[in-house]
């Protein structure tokens, strides 16, 4: 039962929503380095700390690699940590992203999605976070600023239960710099939702432990005669944690609904999928555009539904299969490209469907790279093109099509 609560609506851009969410999550150590379009977020957090509104250590590090190293080490003495970055900053963190996940530290990172060089481009696509897909982080994508606020708060609840760091991704400029109404929770509610961080390991001279030691592939016997994990077991446990995290993500979303009246008991958003013959798949703010496109297509008598991916890691395979069971055509829009192959979400959808009874045709379109405008109109045209292509063949093409409208 959702409780009745008074709305507390503010007009916020995505970065402001993220900053408020981090503050309300009572983060204790923040380490970040400015990069467009994340910069206003990190400035806002340092302002909260200097004003004394947020009791936290704000570390103005000299690089993103260091930002994540500060977070990993602060987390290991028991502090709740937050960082945010975009694009080159996330790429620069790459090594440390592996360490954060490998050490099972529940760090939350806001990734303000931006294109990556060369050449320079500060506008939005999702190549940055998709490139970090295999670092062992949970990745959740937001469609609007309310979701940014809510997802960051949920991210701590998720991360601190499964001991996997969470990357909350939202589109640069489209969300980060665009104001929208956001219902801001009150601190007591967030406190009720988010218990304090209980670390799995605390570095303390009173109980010395040596963390991240060289670890052999095979299990090894300790001085007490106990057999301890090898590297391979530790990697399996991370995979297992991500597999199991789906349940925690859904549960945390449900619990969020109970307190705040907004439901996140889902791993993706669906719109009119029940009777859809064609499903558009998109991730992030593009999913909102896809809903508009579905409206337009339905007006023309085409039964279109939308699947807006929210949780990209762990990838919700069985749920996706269930959602797509009636689709005859799946049109996947990707704001990223795995060069030489196809869009990352398209590959995921294909792999989820393999071996099921669903035999839908799949068409993949690469859109919106480097901030290239992509509107509902283009999604409609692409969907129609995909429908027309079925007359020629239902076989899925090897490579995606690119939409480069001007």
């Amino acid at each position, binding site marked *: 039962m959702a409780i009745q609560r008074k709305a507390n609506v503010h007009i916020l851009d995505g970065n402001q929503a993220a900053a408020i969410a981090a503050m309300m999550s009572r983060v*204790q150590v923040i380490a970040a380095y400015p990069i467009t379009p994340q910069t206003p977020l990190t400035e806002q957090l340092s302002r909260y700390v200097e004003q004394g509104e947020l009791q936290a250590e704000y570390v103005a590090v000299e690089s993103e690699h260091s930002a994540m*190293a500060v977070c990993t080490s602060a987390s290991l003495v028991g502090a709740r940590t937050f960082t945010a970055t975009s694009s080159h900053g996330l790429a620069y963190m790459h090594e440390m992203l592996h360490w954060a996940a490998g050490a099972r530290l529940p760090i939350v990172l806001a990734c303000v999605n931006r294109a990556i060089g060369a050449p320079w481009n500060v506008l939005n696509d999702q190549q940055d976070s998709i490139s970090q897909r295999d670092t062992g982080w949970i990745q959740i994508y937001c469609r609007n600023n309310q979701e940014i606020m809510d997802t960051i708060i949920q991210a701590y609840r998720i991360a601190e239960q499964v001991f996997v760091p969470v990357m909350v991704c939202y589109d640069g400029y489209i969300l980060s710099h665009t104001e929208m109404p956001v219902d801001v929770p009150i601190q007591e509610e967030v406190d009720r939702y988010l218990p304090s961080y209980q670390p799995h390991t605390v570095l303390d*001279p009173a109980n010395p432990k*040596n*963390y*991240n030691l060289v*670890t*052999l592939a095979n299990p*090894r016997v300790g001085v007490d005669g106990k057999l301890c994990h090898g590297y391979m077991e530790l990697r399996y446990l991370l995979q297992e944690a991500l597999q199991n995290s789906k349940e925690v993500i859904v549960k945390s979303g449900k619990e969020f609904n109970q307190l705040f009246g907004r439901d996140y008991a889902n791993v993706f958003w669906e719109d009119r999928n029940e009777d859809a013959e064609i499903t558009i798949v998109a991730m992030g703010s593009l999913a909102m555009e896809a809903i508009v496109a579905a409206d337009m297509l339905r007006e023309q008598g085409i039964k279109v539904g939308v699947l807006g991916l929210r949780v990209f890691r762990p990838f919700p395979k069985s749920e996706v299969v269930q959602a797509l069971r009636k689709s005859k055509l799946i049109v996947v829009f990707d704001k990223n490209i795995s060069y030489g192959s196809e869009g990352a979400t398209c590959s995921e959808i294909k792999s989820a469907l393999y071996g099921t009874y669903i035999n839908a045709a799949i068409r993949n379109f690469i859109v919106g790279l480097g901030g290239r405008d992509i509107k509902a109109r283009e999604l409609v045209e692409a969907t129609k093109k995909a429908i027309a292509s079925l007359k020629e063949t239902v076989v899925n093409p090897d490579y995606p099509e690119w939409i480069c409208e001007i």
Partner: protein
Amino acid sequence: MKANAVNLIEQEWILPGNRTCPGCALSLAYRHTLKALEGQCIVTVPASCATVLHGMYPITAVNVPCVNTPFASTGASATGLVAGLKALGKKGITVLAFAGDGGTHDIGIQSLSGAAERQMDFIYICYDNEGYMNTGNQRSGSTPLGAVSGTTPILGKQQYQKDITAIMEAHGIPYVATCSASYPLDLYEKVKKARTIEGTRFLHVHTPCPPGWLFPFSDTIKFGEMAVETGLVVLYEIENGIFRLTSHSESMALRGGNLQPVREYFISQGRFKTITEEQIDELQDWVNARWKHCLHRATNL
């Protein structure tokens, strides 16, 4: 009371049977560092021979809490430990970064410089074995002129060592000191002093390495002493900008300031097998000039 072999704290925080080579000076330096901190520290260690010393999961040779961190990140990791402890209101624990010369002079200089500029409250010890020993001895920014290594295999290194203590002093940090593993009590005193100071404290420790430098395992202490006696290593501390010679360098200065010639030091190590007489002369001139500068700068003579 100054530390001596008799009154030195008996408790050990590095257990016997660690994985360093016989005659390894880094383990000697680390041992006295942890004694000076009485184990009341949290250590961060990047990829290096110190990682090897720390052991293999689930067995460690070290009895202090430690996080192993990526090669470039030591200064930032120490920052994170400090920030975390501060955020949680935990007091009385010294954060110690313990890194090699590669992890300090080269790949780690960015995170160290950033942390020192922010005046983060930790002790950073660079143990200097003058090369990337963990990966089998390649040149580093601290490999001396003329030394052969895996990546200076035929000609020997053509450049001088990077002056890391000058770089760190330029950050305006409250305490900078040089040490040698061959003078462990001097090291011990310096770490003890550093422990009482707030801000970034930087210690550079000369740690001879038998397999990397190609000298017999039994001669570690001898080569460390020779380096000091020749002036290749000068033992000093700079506390709030005030420069003092210490330990053996101080007594040498007080006894007339004569240095042993550097030649013997070079020709008795395998790594200098291709060093030329001109290079030795060049190095001798460099040592003389620096020693003069130190004598001039010292406030305690």
